[in-house]
């Protein structure tokens, strides 16, 4: 029987183990990091792209500006606005669809976040997205509403959106 020990902590491990149970170090192929490099870079908050000039907002409407594509979308200020990417196969039709803004490759989930109008003001909620939602450079806890202000920029994965609404 072959005796194997972790090179970092010297704990024994079984043939076929991929990570050391004691210290967590990788036990296979030294080339692994270069083989997979860049595949799973998680999203991080980015410095905010220069926001555009504040647009005119009609009463009862919310305006979204996608900063990378400069696309402007105006939606009725319903109690809840879903933000993500349309997927007809899964019957997912968010009100703000970011497919045209390269949402998929920028890490926007199908049901990524929502904007909710509540008694306490407008709230941004991450809906358990894969690559996270950021507001004022803070990562949002999934399903926990965070107050969002007129003119704030939020980030879905790697995509930034500025929002305007009447208070």
């Amino acid at each position, binding site marked *: 029987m072959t005796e194997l020990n972790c090179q970092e902590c010297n704990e024994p491990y079984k043939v076929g183990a991929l990570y050391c149970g004691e210290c967590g170090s990788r036990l296979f192929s030294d080339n692994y990091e270069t083989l997979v490099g860049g595949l*799973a870079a998680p999203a*991080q908050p980015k410095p905010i792209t220069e926001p555009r000039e504040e647009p005119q907002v009609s009463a009862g409407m919310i305006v979204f500006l996608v900063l990378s594509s400069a696309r402007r979308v105006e939606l009725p200020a319903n109690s809840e606005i879903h933000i993500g990417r349309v997927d007809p196969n899964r019957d997912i039709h968010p009100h703000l669809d970011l497919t045209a803004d390269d949402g998929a490759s920028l890490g926007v989930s199908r049901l990524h976040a929502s904007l909710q109008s509540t008694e306490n003001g407008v709230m941004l909620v991450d809906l358990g997205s894969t690559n996270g939602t950021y507001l004022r450079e803070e990562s949002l806890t999934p399903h926990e509403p965070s107050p969002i202000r007129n003119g704030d920029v939020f980030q879905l994965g790697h995509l930034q959106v500025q929002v305007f609404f009447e208070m």
Partner: protein
Amino acid sequence: MTDDLLAITIQSSRESIAAFDGEQLLYLLVNVDPPKKTTVPYLPRNLSLIVDCSTSMKGDRLGNVKHAAGMIVERIGPEDKISVVAFSDRAEVVRPSSPLTSKATLISQINGIRASGGTEIYQGLEAGYDEIRKSPLDSFSNHMILLTDGHTYGDTKDCLQLARDAAIQGIDISAFGIGDDWNEAFLDKLVAMSGSQSIYIEKPSQVVGYLQDKIRGLGVVFASSFRLLYDFPSGVELLSVFKIAPYAQQFVPDGLDMRLGSIEADSPLTLLLEFQVEVQNSEESFRLPVRFLSDIPSRQMKDYPSDYELEIPISGEHDPIEPPYQLAEAVRALNLYRMNERIWQDIEEGDIPVATRRLQQFNTRLLEAGHSALAEQVELETERLRSMGALSESARKRLKYGTRTLITQTIRLES
């Protein structure tokens, strides 16, 4: 190998196995693909919402549960049935199982729930179980959803027996634990009977989102009672099963067939299986049958088999191990989850210096894997452990459920 109804694909951590005298590890990443939603008829839902209304739920907790329950009416179709049970140390059927004819009535029924008394989960489960069984179970997707914030006393065995009986009849149980004062080991066991999910809700304000998510997820069920048969050749032992998609949940093999919940149309099931194997020198290849059974309501099929036979060449020497990327990332996340479990074991045993050292190592590995938010949390807890010699229940739950979710993130690179 694939079959007509559920396509099974398996990635293995090993391209070859050495003829090696002793136990070695093998990981399999199993993907089960159901057909497209458009081809599957809608299976009405039979839901029972079981709400803890013990004294500790007073205020924000019950308020948010009511708000959330009121919002799920938007997701209930005309063919679905819903019942609501409120329980403390006794249970009250607030709404008997019936189709939703008036949203206003359901909301006022839910709003009438008042908090008082202790927590006896069995009381609530039994009442919900009775309600759900009023419908012909084969014609529905059956789901009990438990929301609780406390420890149950003296009835855990009864709860687990009920969950076991329910699972056999095709009723799944999911559980939401609100706040910090509930027993996650117990809720994990409870939901494992049917292969469902337990969810940690740290703050009452999160209830609405998580419950909506859960109801949205109860989409069009294609296969129910999906189970892995514990039928492996001698020399093969299944050590652990981790459900990765559609949600993260760990299951502990006990030598019996393992229930893994329902499979919805358009929503693949992904599992990480960990085996310990002993390979015989005399064979040319190592064969491992992986067999599943499920019920397919739309075809009126019971015990529908989905089989896969894995074959790995046996080699005379130790070939380098180069596992597929997603499998390796899933195992890395599983290892992080286990590192966290060991830390809590050390703390329970009072071995604070070892726990502190392990927390530091854990923090490093989280950073390496790019999980900076969780790493930051671990750093904070390390400081707290060092200065106070103990950690809070909320830290325990936050890290446990935080590391559990990592495993799902490795697979859902694009969701």
